[in-house]
């Protein structure tokens, strides 16, 4: 069948393109596709183009796999697409964007919490002794 109308059919007023994660997969097994879609569309609805994927569960070698199509991401950002927070964070970790400030802050917080834990357990050991 040949569609003679525009690609995504609906007419949007004041919408914009977003690069975001579309959830797929099954119960207790999520899987995200990194997708360029209109802002107003449903999260898992019709998108313009798939631009990568992200598997949040680690695999056998304890790695979380992420894929990006940098050429197309560059094109869409050049056409004025926004990115969502998780996509920005992933891109920061990948090196395409600068590292997201919250990634750094979360890491610092975790490190501080880990060090205070260690100090607390050491002090507890001393007290017991």
């Amino acid at each position: 069948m040949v569609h003679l109308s525009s690609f995504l059919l609906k007419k949007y007023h004041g919408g914009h393109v977003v690069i975001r994660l579309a959830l797929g997969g099954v119960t207790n097994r999520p899987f995200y596709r990194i997708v360029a879609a209109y802002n107003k569309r449903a999260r898992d609805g019709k998108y313009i183009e798939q631009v990568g994927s992200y598997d949040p569960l680690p695999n056998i070698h304890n790695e979380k796999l992420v894929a990006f199509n940098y050429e197309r991401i560059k094109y869409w950002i050049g056409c004025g697409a926004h990115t969502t927070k998780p996509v920005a964070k992933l891109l920061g970790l990948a090196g395409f964007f600068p590292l997201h400030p919250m990634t750094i802050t979360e890491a610092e917080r975790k490190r501080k919490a880990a060090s205070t834990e260690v100090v607390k357990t050491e002090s507890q050991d001393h007290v017991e002794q």
Partner: protein
Amino acid sequence: MLRALSRCHDPVFRLLAPRSTVLVETVRGRKSRTDPKAKSKLGRIKTPPPVDPVEMVVLKERFTEYNLILRALRLEFKEQVLRKKYEDEVGSAAEERAKREAEEHRSLMAWNDAENLRLRKIREQRVQKEAEEAEMKRREAVLLRQQELENYIKEKERQIIQLQEEAKDFITLDNLDQRIEEALDNPKNYNFAIDKEGRIVKRTAFQ
């Protein structure tokens, strides 16, 4: 309020809200706006999570830097996209590509026309043949019908002649008496006997 903030796409800023404020705005989850508050939540004062001022300052700096870099990247990509579009339309290889595409189009159209011509010739021949065959069939049908008519007429004439022949032996009022006399004078015996081997015996005990 914080959940509503997290829905927008801009980076989330944890504002330095004062400690013991009752946040009036809520996000509707399971209950509607007319449902009363639960009794266990009567004396609850919701406070936002505590914010470390030192960390906040550092975060603000990091965010400004991050946004700066992101804006620069965005403009860079936009420039790349525009440059590519310009190259495609008015670039160095654009004219040759356009010429090549026009050539291809012309050749394809010519091939298409040739195909159409060939198919038209074949179609015309076929149509002609079919017309001739139809004509032949029609003529044959006419002949057949004529033949049938003639046969019918002949058959009817034959029947008439036969009837005329038989009419000579009919019994009419004139020869009624004569025929009765004849019939009474020659009695016919239709009785016969037959056995299992097929031997017919015509001579029977008749009065």
